[in-house]
């Protein structure tokens, strides 16, 4: 029993964090939101070069040959930077699911951009930048879209009208795409939560009221500590879900659901607490906090909300 990441895994994640700290600052994210692209093309190329996009693609198909354990810290780092665009959909599902198809090469090197259309949702995120849309059983490359105005500028939403489709499987490591995305979103939400807490802690250190930094008041301390508590206790379940998915554990669906339920609730709590710590500033467009808050409000519901996933856990542990 060894519940830790290898040094290689940690170093790769640190490398990604380093890249994102330069090429995916809040200024970059805001630029992607405001230019309507909802996507950062330069960053995308770098993620392809670094092997992030092809992390889960077998080496034989030109990928990094990683497992979901290798990927889970990367999902988390992507969330910490609130990376806009379909990076999770592309990396966690499309690239590995289509690794044996004609699109494999373009997906690995990032010249193609893929997103997902999950059955339970009438809308498709990121369809404006994608040239490939993967459904549970087909690939759509010829389509038109209508903007339905998602709340998160880095995850714009569309209705899609497919002109033609090609049969394909969206399974990854034997798991349905929606479950792989639930796991990836859980890890991404943990990163999102960590970033909100860091930003709010920094604000609480600087902002003074009553002649003291507001972070010195117990009310602020306790809001922040409670937010951190939920995030910290969502981590191990998320990493365990990645292990279960990588090893074909019989409890993989239960474990993914546990991760997504806990991470969704942790992210929502973090969004509320950190906004409250910011006060009026947190309610403005110009505060960076919104870049993560809106991400948390979008992803906490995408790929199954906490209630959906908690009930799936319940079906396993109460009736099993």
């Amino acid at each position, binding site marked *: 029993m060894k519940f830790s990441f290898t040094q290689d895994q940690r170093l790769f994640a640190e490398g990604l964090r380093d890249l994102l700290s330069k090429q995916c600052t809040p200024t970059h994210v805001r630029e992607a939101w405001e230019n309507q692209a909802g996507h950062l093309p330069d960053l995308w190329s770098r993620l392809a070069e670094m092997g992030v996009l092809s992390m889960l693609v077998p080496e034989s198909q030109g990928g990094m040959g990683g497992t979901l354990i290798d990927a889970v810290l990367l999902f988390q780092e992507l969330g910490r930077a609130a990376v806009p665009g379909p990076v999770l959909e592309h990396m966690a599902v499309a690239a590995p699911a289509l690794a044996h198809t004609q699109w494999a090469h373009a997906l690995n090197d990032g010249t193609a951009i893929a997103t997902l259309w999950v059955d339970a949702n009438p*809308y498709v995120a990121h369809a404006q930048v994608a040239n490939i849309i993967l459904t549970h059983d087909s690939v759509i490359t010829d389509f038109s879209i209508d903007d339905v105005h998602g709340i998160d500028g880095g995850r714009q939403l569309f209705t899609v009208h497919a002109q033609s489709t090609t049969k394909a499987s969206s399974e990854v490591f034997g798991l349905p795409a929606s479950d792989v995305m639930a796991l990836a979103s859980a890890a991404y939400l943990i990163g999102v939560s960590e970033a909100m807490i860091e930003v709010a802690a920094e604000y609480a250190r600087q902002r003074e009221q009553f002649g003291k930094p507001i972070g010195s008041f117990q009310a602020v301390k306790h809001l922040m500590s409670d937010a951190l508590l939920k995030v910290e206790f969502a981590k191990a379940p998320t990493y365990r879900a990645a292990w279960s998915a990588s090893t074909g554990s019989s409890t993989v669906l239960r474990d993914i659901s546990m991760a997504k339920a806990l991470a969704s609730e942790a992210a929502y709590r973090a969004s509320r607490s950190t906004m409250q710590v910011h006060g009026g500033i947190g309610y403005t467009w110009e505060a960076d906090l919104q870049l993560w*808050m809106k991400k948390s409000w979008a992803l906490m519901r*995408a790929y199954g909300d906490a209630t959906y996933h908690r009930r799936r856990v319940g079906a396993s542990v109460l009736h099993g």
Partner: protein
Amino acid sequence: MDLNETAQESAFRSEARTWLEANVPTSALPSFDTAEGFALHRAWEKKLYDGGWSAVSWPVEYGGRDADYIMWLIFEEEYYRSGAPGRVNQNGIFLLGPTIMEVGTQAQKTKFLPSMASSEIVWAQAWSEPNAGSDMASIRSKATRDGDEWVLNGQKIWASRAVWADWCFGIFRTDPTAERHRGLTFILCPLDLPGITVRPIAQLDGDTGFAEIFFDDVRVPVANTLGEENKGWAVAMATAGFERGVSLRSPARFTEAVKRLIHLWKTYGDPSDTALSDAVTDAWMQAEGYRLHTYQTVTGMLEGRTIGAEASLNKIFWSEMDVRIHEIALQILGPEAERMEGPSQRWVDGFLFSLSGPIYAGTNEIQRNIIADRVLQLPKGI
């Protein structure tokens, strides 16, 4: 105790309902945070005024109906029930108006109240400053006496409606040697004077509901002082009391929201899901509890009791209830809740707006301190 309406109250309700049904615009007006929407809302306020409904609790001489608090609550119920537009001049009619009636001179009442009731003048509030948020006593904007004029300098922030409004009210430091709550004066100021710059602030939803106001040697007559010079804090606290208490968030707002929530649940909710029906029922109980609590409070006021620090209990209650109502709605909406338009639009807008509730008019953390210190008599902390 008699929780039935009197004949007079029922007649009043009926009259209000009849007028509103005949006059409320049939389709929603654009946001009053746009030029077009602001003008349309001002026109609606004028229509309300002409019907005698813009400020029902005010004296007849200033455009009201002398309605008591109970009747005011009844009017609010009918107003929300009718789906009528938001009140673009609420900072004036519900906050500044009662304050002027309490501490203003006769000249001020005559000058400001009728034009407020008719919304000829729409008012913005200008309380906070960049470094005076929760700590409102650390105001730095100042007013310097120069003959019969105040010369205003400084910066206000979170000024609701300031982008399009005509006048604003706020407190300024008039005694530079005094500290914190002392030496402040409550001043009324037109927003079109030389030296004033209004910079809109974009909110979470991209709209510009509030603004910064910069004062650069702005001159207003000393006659624009409300209440005593250097006693502005007490005047502001009276205003804030109205805001936290019964005036700004009348129960009807929430009972109507919960009616819509129940409709949403009936339309999209799984009726066998007891966790969900418990949540919706709880929202109903909260709104109903707030309504009952308010009726009890205003009966007490009619019987001569005053509302003190208990107003802070209200502020926490309605602001947290508002967030909760919207959380439940978004949960029911599922994937639709990720959209800023479509069937979920009103709920998502309302959710974002609700998040400001625990912050503005004094954060809920500050309210909890006030309750602990003044109601529970715990020793001062800060």
